[in-house]
Protein backbone atom coordinates (compact mmCIF):
# COMPACT_ATOMS: atom_id res chain seq x y z
CA UNK A 1 0.00 0.00 0.00
CA UNK A 2 1.47 3.35 -0.97
CA UNK A 3 1.93 5.72 1.94
CA UNK A 4 0.08 9.04 1.63
CA UNK A 5 2.42 11.96 1.15
CA UNK A 6 3.15 13.81 4.35
CA UNK A 7 2.65 17.55 4.10
CA UNK A 8 3.29 19.58 7.22
CA UNK A 9 0.35 21.67 8.44
CA UNK A 10 2.40 24.84 8.10
CA UNK A 11 3.13 24.06 4.48
CA UNK A 12 -0.50 23.20 3.77
CA UNK A 13 -1.80 26.45 5.24
CA UNK A 14 0.85 28.43 3.45
CA UNK A 15 -0.02 26.86 0.12
CA UNK A 16 -3.71 27.48 0.62
CA UNK A 17 -3.18 31.08 1.64
CA UNK A 18 -0.97 31.70 -1.33
CA UNK A 19 -3.51 30.12 -3.64
CA UNK A 20 -6.34 32.27 -2.25
CA UNK A 21 -4.29 35.46 -2.31
CA UNK A 22 -3.34 34.87 -5.90
CA UNK A 23 -6.97 34.48 -6.93
CA UNK A 24 -8.00 37.61 -5.07
CA UNK A 25 -5.19 39.78 -6.38
CA UNK A 26 -6.26 39.03 -9.95
CA UNK A 27 -9.68 40.62 -9.27
CA UNK A 28 -10.52 44.29 -9.46
CA UNK A 29 -10.56 46.35 -6.29
CA UNK A 30 -13.35 47.79 -4.14
CA UNK A 31 -13.13 50.72 -1.75
CA UNK A 32 -15.44 51.79 1.06
CA UNK A 33 -15.34 55.38 2.30
CA UNK A 34 -17.24 57.00 5.14
CA UNK A 35 -18.80 60.25 3.99
CA UNK A 36 -21.10 62.85 5.53
CA UNK A 37 -24.35 60.91 5.11
CA UNK A 38 -23.11 57.37 5.49
CA UNK A 39 -20.86 54.90 3.75
CA UNK A 40 -19.90 54.89 0.08
CA UNK A 41 -18.84 51.76 -1.83
CA UNK A 42 -17.05 52.03 -5.16
CA UNK A 43 -16.12 48.98 -7.21
CA UNK A 44 -14.43 48.69 -10.53
CA UNK A 45 -16.98 46.54 -12.36
CA UNK A 46 -17.78 46.91 -16.05
CA UNK A 47 -20.87 44.68 -15.73
CA UNK A 48 -24.14 46.41 -14.94
CA UNK A 49 -25.91 43.12 -14.22
CA UNK A 50 -23.51 41.11 -12.08
CA UNK A 51 -23.10 43.07 -8.89
CA UNK A 52 -20.20 43.13 -6.47
CA UNK A 53 -21.99 45.45 -4.07
CA UNK A 54 -25.41 44.58 -2.68
CA UNK A 55 -27.96 45.24 -0.02
CA UNK A 56 -28.17 42.83 2.89
CA UNK A 57 -30.61 44.55 5.22
CA UNK A 58 -31.96 47.95 6.22
CA UNK A 59 -28.61 49.43 7.29
CA UNK A 60 -26.22 46.75 6.03
CA UNK A 61 -24.43 46.37 2.72
CA UNK A 62 -22.13 43.72 1.33
CA UNK A 63 -19.22 43.91 -1.08
CA UNK A 64 -17.17 41.02 -2.39
CA UNK A 65 -14.05 40.59 -4.51
CA UNK A 66 -12.59 37.46 -5.99
CA UNK A 67 -14.50 34.57 -7.47
CA UNK A 68 -18.03 35.59 -8.38
CA UNK A 69 -19.81 32.33 -7.57
CA UNK A 70 -18.13 32.17 -4.18
CA UNK A 71 -18.93 35.67 -2.95
CA UNK A 72 -22.41 35.42 -4.49
CA UNK A 73 -22.97 32.33 -2.32
CA UNK A 74 -21.80 34.29 0.72
CA UNK A 75 -24.05 37.20 -0.18
CA UNK A 76 -27.19 35.05 -0.42
CA UNK A 77 -26.27 33.35 2.85
CA UNK A 78 -25.97 36.81 4.39
CA UNK A 79 -29.37 37.93 3.12
CA UNK A 80 -30.88 34.77 4.61
CA UNK A 81 -29.12 35.23 7.92
CA UNK A 82 -30.32 38.82 8.17
CA UNK A 83 -33.89 38.15 7.04
CA UNK A 84 -34.35 35.21 9.41
CA UNK A 85 -32.98 37.27 12.28
CA UNK A 86 -35.11 40.28 11.44
CA UNK A 87 -38.19 38.11 11.09
CA UNK A 88 -37.72 36.17 14.29
CA UNK A 89 -36.68 39.15 16.47
CA UNK A 90 -37.14 42.64 15.06
CA UNK A 91 -35.66 44.68 12.25
CA UNK A 92 -33.53 46.68 14.67
CA UNK A 93 -31.83 43.54 16.01
CA UNK A 94 -30.06 42.72 12.76
CA UNK A 95 -26.45 43.84 13.08
CA UNK A 96 -23.40 43.84 10.84
CA UNK A 97 -21.31 42.49 13.69
CA UNK A 98 -23.13 39.20 13.96
CA UNK A 99 -23.15 38.84 10.19
CA UNK A 100 -19.43 39.58 9.97
CA UNK A 101 -18.79 36.97 12.65
CA UNK A 102 -20.83 34.44 10.71
CA UNK A 103 -18.79 35.14 7.58
CA UNK A 104 -15.60 34.86 9.56
CA UNK A 105 -16.66 31.48 10.98
CA UNK A 106 -17.76 30.22 7.59
CA UNK A 107 -14.66 31.30 5.71
CA UNK A 108 -12.40 30.05 8.51
CA UNK A 109 -14.01 26.62 8.41
CA UNK A 110 -13.72 26.38 4.65
CA UNK A 111 -10.10 27.45 4.79
CA UNK A 112 -9.08 24.80 7.31
CA UNK A 113 -11.32 21.92 6.24
CA UNK A 114 -11.74 22.10 2.48
CA UNK A 115 -9.11 21.30 -0.09
CA UNK A 116 -9.74 24.54 -1.93
CA UNK A 117 -10.19 27.73 0.09
CA UNK A 118 -12.59 30.45 -1.07
CA UNK A 119 -10.77 33.05 -3.16
CA UNK A 120 -12.73 35.96 -1.76
CA UNK A 121 -12.61 38.92 0.56
CA UNK A 122 -15.78 40.61 1.73
CA UNK A 123 -16.75 43.86 3.36
CA UNK A 124 -19.78 44.15 5.62
CA UNK A 125 -20.80 47.75 6.27
CA UNK A 126 -23.42 49.12 8.61
CA UNK A 127 -24.44 52.75 8.65
CA UNK A 128 -25.24 54.35 12.01
CA UNK A 129 -28.72 55.72 12.58
CA UNK A 130 -29.24 59.44 13.19
CA UNK A 131 -26.63 62.17 13.43
CA UNK A 132 -24.30 60.68 16.01
CA UNK A 133 -24.73 57.11 14.77
CA UNK A 134 -21.45 55.26 14.34
CA UNK A 135 -20.66 53.42 11.15
CA UNK A 136 -19.15 49.94 11.17
CA UNK A 137 -16.98 48.44 8.45
CA UNK A 138 -15.81 44.83 8.76
CA UNK A 139 -13.28 43.33 6.40
CA UNK A 140 -13.22 39.53 6.29
CA UNK A 141 -10.42 37.65 4.54
CA UNK A 142 -10.34 34.28 2.79
CA UNK A 143 -9.13 32.50 5.93
CA UNK A 144 -11.71 33.99 8.25
CA UNK A 145 -9.48 36.78 9.56
CA UNK A 146 -11.70 39.69 10.54
CA UNK A 147 -10.74 43.33 10.94
CA UNK A 148 -12.84 46.36 11.68
CA UNK A 149 -11.86 49.38 9.67
CA UNK A 150 -12.36 53.09 10.22
CA UNK A 151 -12.94 55.87 7.71
CA UNK A 152 -12.03 53.78 4.68
CA UNK A 153 -11.29 50.25 3.53
CA UNK A 154 -9.94 48.68 0.38
CA UNK A 155 -9.72 45.10 -0.87
CA UNK A 156 -8.96 43.20 -4.04
CA UNK A 157 -6.05 43.53 -6.44
CA UNK A 158 -3.25 45.86 -5.29
CA UNK A 159 -5.28 47.00 -2.32
CA UNK A 160 -2.20 47.98 -0.33
CA UNK A 161 -1.41 50.83 -2.70
CA UNK A 162 -5.05 51.91 -2.74
CA UNK A 163 -5.14 51.89 1.04
CA UNK A 164 -2.00 53.99 1.17
CA UNK A 165 -3.55 56.52 -1.19
CA UNK A 166 -6.72 56.68 0.90
CA UNK A 167 -4.69 57.12 4.08
CA UNK A 168 -3.01 60.18 2.62
CA UNK A 169 -6.09 61.73 1.05
CA UNK A 170 -9.01 60.82 3.28
CA UNK A 171 -10.85 63.65 5.01
CA UNK A 172 -13.78 63.46 7.37
CA UNK A 173 -17.22 64.77 6.41
CA UNK A 174 -16.80 64.69 2.63
CA UNK A 175 -19.95 65.18 0.61
CA UNK A 176 -21.08 62.47 -1.79
CA UNK A 177 -19.48 63.92 -4.93
CA UNK A 178 -16.12 64.48 -3.21
CA UNK A 179 -16.18 61.02 -1.68
CA UNK A 180 -16.93 59.39 -5.03
CA UNK A 181 -14.13 61.34 -6.70
CA UNK A 182 -11.75 60.26 -3.95
CA UNK A 183 -12.83 56.65 -4.35
CA UNK A 184 -12.38 56.66 -8.12
CA UNK A 185 -8.96 58.35 -7.85
CA UNK A 186 -7.94 55.70 -5.34
CA UNK A 187 -8.96 52.92 -7.72
CA UNK A 188 -6.98 54.60 -10.51
CA UNK A 189 -3.75 54.73 -8.49
CA UNK A 190 -2.82 51.24 -9.60
CA UNK A 191 -3.53 51.64 -13.30
CA UNK A 192 -2.73 54.02 -16.12
CA UNK A 193 -6.18 54.27 -17.71
CA UNK A 194 -8.85 56.53 -16.29
CA UNK A 195 -12.13 55.09 -15.06
CA UNK A 196 -15.48 56.41 -16.26
CA UNK A 197 -18.98 55.74 -14.97
CA UNK A 198 -19.18 52.78 -17.36
CA UNK A 199 -16.40 50.94 -15.50
CA UNK A 200 -17.81 51.53 -12.05
CA UNK A 201 -20.39 50.17 -9.69
CA UNK A 202 -21.28 52.63 -6.96
CA UNK A 203 -23.71 52.37 -4.07
CA UNK A 204 -24.24 54.08 -0.74
CA UNK A 205 -25.73 53.40 2.64
CA UNK A 206 -27.46 56.73 3.05
CA UNK A 207 -28.62 57.43 6.60
CA UNK A 208 -30.97 60.18 5.42
CA UNK A 209 -33.10 57.56 3.67
CA UNK A 210 -36.10 55.94 5.30
CA UNK A 211 -35.79 52.35 6.55
CA UNK A 212 -33.81 50.72 3.72
CA UNK A 213 -30.65 52.83 3.49
CA UNK A 214 -29.04 51.07 0.55
CA UNK A 215 -29.13 52.92 -2.75
CA UNK A 216 -27.33 52.33 -6.03
CA UNK A 217 -26.03 55.36 -7.89
CA UNK A 218 -27.12 55.02 -11.54
CA UNK A 219 -24.65 55.76 -14.35
CA UNK A 220 -26.24 59.11 -15.35
CA UNK A 221 -26.05 60.46 -11.82
CA UNK A 222 -22.56 59.08 -11.44
CA UNK A 223 -21.46 60.86 -14.60
CA UNK A 224 -22.63 64.19 -13.16
CA UNK A 225 -20.96 63.52 -9.83
CA UNK A 226 -17.68 62.62 -11.50
CA UNK A 227 -17.56 65.72 -13.65
CA UNK A 228 -15.71 68.34 -11.59
CA UNK A 229 -17.38 71.71 -11.31
CA UNK A 230 -20.78 70.36 -12.34
Amino acid at each position, binding site marked *: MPLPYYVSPEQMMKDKAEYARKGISRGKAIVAIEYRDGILLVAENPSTLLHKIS*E*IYDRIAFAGVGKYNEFENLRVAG*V*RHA*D*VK*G*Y*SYSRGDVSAKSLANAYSQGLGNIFTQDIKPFEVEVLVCEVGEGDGGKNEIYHILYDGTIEDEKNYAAMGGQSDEIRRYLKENFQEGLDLAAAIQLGVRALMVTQNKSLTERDLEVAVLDRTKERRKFRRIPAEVLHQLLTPGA
Partner: protein
Amino acid sequence: MTPERWQAAFSDYSTSSFSDYLRHAAPHLLPTPEPAARPAASDGHVAGVPHGTTVLALRYRDGVVMAGDRQASEGYQVAHRRIEKLFKSDDLSAVGIAGAAGPAMEMARLFQTELEHYEKVEGENLSLDGKANRLGAMIRANLPMAMQGLVVVPIFAGFDERAGVGRLFKYDVTGGRYEETDYFAQGSGGKDARDSLKKRFRRDMSRDEAVRAALEALLDAADEDLGTGGPDFQRGIFPTVKTISRSGITDLTDDDVRRHLEAILSDRGRN
Protein backbone atom coordinates in the same frame (compact mmCIF):
# COMPACT_ATOMS: atom_id res chain seq x y z
CA MET B 1 -18.39 15.78 -9.13
CA THR B 2 -21.40 13.52 -9.56
CA PRO B 3 -24.24 14.79 -11.74
CA GLU B 4 -26.56 14.87 -8.70
CA ARG B 5 -24.31 17.37 -6.96
CA TRP B 6 -24.21 19.97 -9.68
CA GLN B 7 -27.88 19.51 -10.45
CA ALA B 8 -28.74 20.48 -6.90
CA ALA B 9 -28.01 24.11 -7.81
CA PHE B 10 -30.87 23.96 -10.30
CA SER B 11 -33.40 21.96 -8.33
CA ASP B 12 -33.15 24.07 -5.17
CA TYR B 13 -36.25 26.13 -5.76
CA SER B 14 -36.18 27.70 -2.34
CA THR B 15 -33.21 29.93 -3.15
CA SER B 16 -35.27 33.10 -3.58
CA SER B 17 -38.23 32.34 -1.35
CA PHE B 18 -37.94 33.28 2.28
CA SER B 19 -40.84 31.14 3.48
CA ASP B 20 -39.51 28.07 1.66
CA TYR B 21 -36.12 28.69 3.20
CA LEU B 22 -37.65 29.00 6.67
CA ARG B 23 -39.61 25.79 6.13
CA HIS B 24 -36.46 23.73 5.85
CA ALA B 25 -33.96 25.83 7.83
CA ALA B 26 -36.01 26.99 10.81
CA PRO B 27 -39.54 25.53 10.68
CA HIS B 28 -40.18 26.52 14.30
CA LEU B 29 -40.25 30.17 13.20
CA LEU B 30 -43.10 29.63 10.74
CA PRO B 31 -46.64 30.32 11.87
CA THR B 32 -47.64 26.67 12.26
CA PRO B 33 -51.04 25.19 12.91
CA GLU B 34 -51.80 24.83 16.59
CA PRO B 35 -53.83 21.94 17.93
CA ALA B 36 -57.37 23.03 18.68
CA ALA B 37 -57.47 24.31 22.24
CA ARG B 38 -61.19 24.76 22.11
CA PRO B 39 -63.78 24.10 19.46
CA ALA B 40 -64.71 26.82 17.03
CA ALA B 41 -67.86 28.74 17.81
CA SER B 42 -70.89 28.07 15.66
CA ASP B 43 -70.19 31.08 13.44
CA GLY B 44 -66.74 29.73 12.67
CA HIS B 45 -64.93 32.27 14.87
CA VAL B 46 -62.82 31.25 17.81
CA ALA B 47 -64.04 33.03 20.91
CA GLY B 48 -61.52 35.35 22.52
CA VAL B 49 -59.50 36.00 19.39
CA PRO B 50 -59.58 39.52 18.00
CA HIS B 51 -60.84 39.77 14.45
CA GLY B 52 -60.11 42.50 11.96
CA THR B 53 -63.23 43.65 10.29
CA THR B 54 -63.51 45.77 7.16
CA VAL B 55 -60.88 46.46 4.51
CA LEU B 56 -61.49 47.52 0.93
CA ALA B 57 -59.68 48.41 -2.26
CA LEU B 58 -60.83 50.13 -5.43
CA ARG B 59 -59.19 51.19 -8.63
CA TYR B 60 -58.88 54.78 -9.72
CA ARG B 61 -57.22 56.59 -12.59
CA ASP B 62 -53.60 56.25 -11.43
CA GLY B 63 -53.73 53.04 -9.41
CA VAL B 64 -55.52 51.66 -6.36
CA VAL B 65 -56.94 53.14 -3.17
CA MET B 66 -57.01 50.92 -0.08
CA ALA B 67 -58.83 51.71 3.12
CA GLY B 68 -59.62 49.97 6.39
CA ASP B 69 -61.37 50.78 9.64
CA ARG B 70 -59.40 50.68 12.89
CA GLN B 71 -61.40 48.32 15.06
CA ALA B 72 -60.71 44.73 16.05
CA SER B 73 -63.61 42.85 17.61
CA GLU B 74 -63.84 39.89 19.96
CA GLY B 75 -67.36 38.64 19.55
CA TYR B 76 -69.52 41.59 20.60
CA GLN B 77 -66.66 43.33 22.36
CA VAL B 78 -64.23 45.88 21.01
CA ALA B 79 -60.76 44.31 21.26
CA HIS B 80 -58.75 47.25 19.89
CA ARG B 81 -59.68 50.67 18.60
CA ARG B 82 -56.51 51.60 16.79
CA ILE B 83 -55.41 48.45 14.99
CA GLU B 84 -53.74 48.87 11.60
CA LYS B 85 -55.11 46.61 8.90
CA LEU B 86 -53.24 47.87 5.88
CA PHE B 87 -49.63 46.76 5.54
CA LYS B 88 -47.22 47.98 2.95
CA SER B 89 -45.76 44.81 1.49
CA ASP B 90 -43.22 46.58 -0.73
CA ASP B 91 -42.86 49.89 -2.58
CA LEU B 92 -45.75 49.17 -4.94
CA SER B 93 -48.15 46.86 -3.13
CA ALA B 94 -50.03 46.48 0.13
CA VAL B 95 -52.10 43.89 1.98
CA GLY B 96 -55.34 44.60 3.79
CA ILE B 97 -56.03 42.00 6.44
CA ALA B 98 -59.38 40.63 7.53
CA GLY B 99 -60.14 37.72 9.80
CA ALA B 100 -58.23 36.53 12.85
CA ALA B 101 -55.96 39.48 13.58
CA GLY B 102 -52.98 37.61 15.08
CA PRO B 103 -52.34 35.13 12.26
CA ALA B 104 -53.23 37.77 9.68
CA MET B 105 -50.63 40.24 10.95
CA GLU B 106 -48.06 37.45 11.17
CA MET B 107 -48.86 36.53 7.58
CA ALA B 108 -48.48 40.14 6.48
CA ARG B 109 -45.07 40.31 8.17
CA LEU B 110 -43.94 37.07 6.56
CA PHE B 111 -45.19 38.32 3.21
CA GLN B 112 -43.25 41.58 3.54
CA THR B 113 -40.07 39.66 4.32
CA GLU B 114 -40.79 37.27 1.45
CA LEU B 115 -41.00 40.08 -1.12
CA GLU B 116 -37.97 41.94 0.19
CA HIS B 117 -35.97 38.71 0.35
CA TYR B 118 -36.79 37.89 -3.26
CA GLU B 119 -35.86 41.38 -4.35
CA LYS B 120 -32.51 41.27 -2.59
CA VAL B 121 -31.55 37.77 -3.72
CA GLU B 122 -32.69 38.09 -7.32
CA GLY B 123 -31.85 41.76 -7.75
CA GLU B 124 -35.27 42.59 -9.13
CA ASN B 125 -38.87 42.73 -8.01
CA LEU B 126 -41.40 39.95 -8.34
CA SER B 127 -44.17 40.64 -10.84
CA LEU B 128 -47.50 41.63 -9.31
CA ASP B 129 -48.92 38.26 -10.37
CA GLY B 130 -46.00 36.55 -8.69
CA LYS B 131 -46.63 38.46 -5.47
CA ALA B 132 -50.36 37.64 -5.57
CA ASN B 133 -49.58 33.94 -6.05
CA ARG B 134 -47.12 33.89 -3.16
CA LEU B 135 -49.74 35.38 -0.86
CA GLY B 136 -52.20 32.74 -2.08
CA ALA B 137 -49.72 30.02 -1.15
CA MET B 138 -49.38 31.47 2.35
CA ILE B 139 -53.13 31.51 2.85
CA ARG B 140 -53.27 27.92 1.67
CA ALA B 141 -50.59 27.02 4.22
CA ASN B 142 -52.86 28.52 6.87
CA LEU B 143 -55.74 26.19 5.93
CA PRO B 144 -55.39 23.90 8.98
CA MET B 145 -55.72 26.94 11.24
CA ALA B 146 -58.60 28.23 9.14
CA MET B 147 -60.38 24.94 9.79
CA GLN B 148 -60.03 25.65 13.52
CA GLY B 149 -61.74 28.98 12.99
CA LEU B 150 -58.67 31.21 12.57
CA VAL B 151 -59.59 32.33 9.09
CA VAL B 152 -57.36 34.83 7.29
CA VAL B 153 -58.65 36.36 4.05
CA PRO B 154 -56.68 39.41 2.96
CA ILE B 155 -57.07 41.75 0.02
CA PHE B 156 -53.95 42.35 -2.00
CA ALA B 157 -53.55 45.42 -4.20
CA GLY B 158 -50.68 46.97 -6.03
CA PHE B 159 -49.43 48.79 -9.05
CA ASP B 160 -48.42 46.50 -11.91
CA GLU B 161 -45.34 48.12 -13.45
CA ARG B 162 -45.41 45.86 -16.50
CA ALA B 163 -49.06 46.52 -17.35
CA GLY B 164 -48.98 50.12 -16.09
CA VAL B 165 -52.21 49.77 -14.08
CA GLY B 166 -53.36 49.25 -10.52
CA ARG B 167 -54.76 45.78 -9.78
CA LEU B 168 -56.48 44.13 -6.85
CA PHE B 169 -56.99 40.55 -5.71
CA LYS B 170 -59.27 38.83 -3.24
CA TYR B 171 -58.70 35.41 -1.73
CA ASP B 172 -60.71 32.60 -0.30
CA VAL B 173 -59.77 30.52 2.68
CA THR B 174 -58.11 27.82 0.57
CA GLY B 175 -55.73 30.32 -1.00
CA GLY B 176 -57.82 30.70 -4.16
CA ARG B 177 -56.90 33.97 -5.83
CA TYR B 178 -59.42 36.03 -7.76
CA GLU B 179 -58.70 39.27 -9.48
CA GLU B 180 -61.31 42.02 -9.25
CA THR B 181 -61.52 44.61 -11.98
CA ASP B 182 -63.10 47.49 -10.07
CA TYR B 183 -63.38 47.19 -6.29
CA PHE B 184 -63.70 44.74 -3.43
CA ALA B 185 -64.29 44.80 0.31
CA GLN B 186 -63.59 42.03 2.79
CA GLY B 187 -64.41 41.34 6.43
CA SER B 188 -67.53 41.44 8.57
CA GLY B 189 -68.61 44.79 7.10
CA GLY B 190 -67.38 43.81 3.67
CA LYS B 191 -70.81 43.20 2.21
CA ASP B 192 -72.10 46.60 3.29
CA ALA B 193 -68.98 48.30 1.97
CA ARG B 194 -69.34 46.46 -1.34
CA ASP B 195 -72.99 47.53 -1.61
CA SER B 196 -71.92 51.09 -1.04
CA LEU B 197 -69.06 50.91 -3.53
CA LYS B 198 -71.33 49.36 -6.12
CA LYS B 199 -73.41 52.53 -6.16
CA ARG B 200 -70.51 54.97 -6.06
CA PHE B 201 -67.81 53.34 -8.14
CA ARG B 202 -67.05 54.78 -11.56
CA ARG B 203 -64.19 54.01 -13.90
CA ASP B 204 -61.27 56.47 -13.94
CA MET B 205 -62.14 58.42 -10.83
CA SER B 206 -59.66 60.99 -9.60
CA ARG B 207 -57.72 60.28 -6.42
CA ASP B 208 -59.96 62.51 -4.31
CA GLU B 209 -63.12 60.96 -5.69
CA ALA B 210 -61.81 57.46 -5.05
CA VAL B 211 -60.74 58.31 -1.49
CA ARG B 212 -64.17 59.76 -0.86
CA ALA B 213 -65.90 56.65 -2.24
CA ALA B 214 -63.71 54.48 -0.01
CA LEU B 215 -64.51 56.49 3.11
CA GLU B 216 -68.24 56.56 2.30
CA ALA B 217 -68.15 52.78 2.00
CA LEU B 218 -66.42 52.45 5.39
CA LEU B 219 -68.98 54.79 6.97
CA ASP B 220 -71.79 52.69 5.52
CA ALA B 221 -70.17 49.51 6.78
CA ALA B 222 -69.74 51.00 10.26
CA ASP B 223 -73.39 52.03 10.15
CA GLU B 224 -74.66 48.54 9.44
CA ASP B 225 -72.06 46.21 10.93
CA LEU B 226 -71.37 45.88 14.65
CA GLY B 227 -67.77 44.83 14.14
CA THR B 228 -66.72 47.78 12.01
CA GLY B 229 -65.55 50.91 13.78
CA GLY B 230 -66.69 54.29 12.57
CA PRO B 231 -64.52 57.40 12.70
CA ASP B 232 -63.99 58.52 16.29
CA PHE B 233 -63.73 62.31 16.31
CA GLN B 234 -63.43 62.47 20.08
CA ARG B 235 -60.42 60.16 20.33
CA GLY B 236 -59.09 61.21 16.95
CA ILE B 237 -59.20 57.70 15.44
CA PHE B 238 -59.75 57.66 11.70
CA PRO B 239 -59.70 54.96 9.04
CA THR B 240 -56.37 54.26 7.33
CA VAL B 241 -56.22 55.14 3.66
CA LYS B 242 -53.37 54.37 1.27
CA THR B 243 -53.08 55.17 -2.41
CA ILE B 244 -50.82 53.06 -4.61
CA SER B 245 -49.68 54.45 -7.95
CA ARG B 246 -46.64 54.33 -10.22
CA SER B 247 -44.75 56.63 -7.88
CA GLY B 248 -45.29 54.41 -4.84
CA ILE B 249 -47.50 54.18 -1.79
CA THR B 250 -48.85 57.30 -0.09
CA ASP B 251 -50.56 57.32 3.30
CA LEU B 252 -53.27 59.88 3.75
CA THR B 253 -52.69 61.89 6.90
CA ASP B 254 -55.30 61.82 9.65
CA ASP B 255 -56.04 65.47 8.89
CA ASP B 256 -56.81 64.67 5.25
CA VAL B 257 -59.05 61.78 6.25
CA ARG B 258 -60.81 63.96 8.83
CA ARG B 259 -61.44 66.64 6.21
CA HIS B 260 -62.93 64.12 3.79
CA LEU B 261 -65.10 62.61 6.51
CA GLU B 262 -66.36 65.99 7.68
CA ALA B 263 -67.31 66.88 4.12
CA ILE B 264 -69.13 63.57 3.69
CA LEU B 265 -70.96 63.84 7.00
CA SER B 266 -72.02 67.43 6.41
CA ASP B 267 -73.31 66.48 2.95
CA ARG B 268 -75.22 63.58 4.46
CA GLY B 269 -76.63 65.78 7.23
CA ARG B 270 -77.98 68.17 4.67
CA ASN B 271 -80.03 65.55 2.83
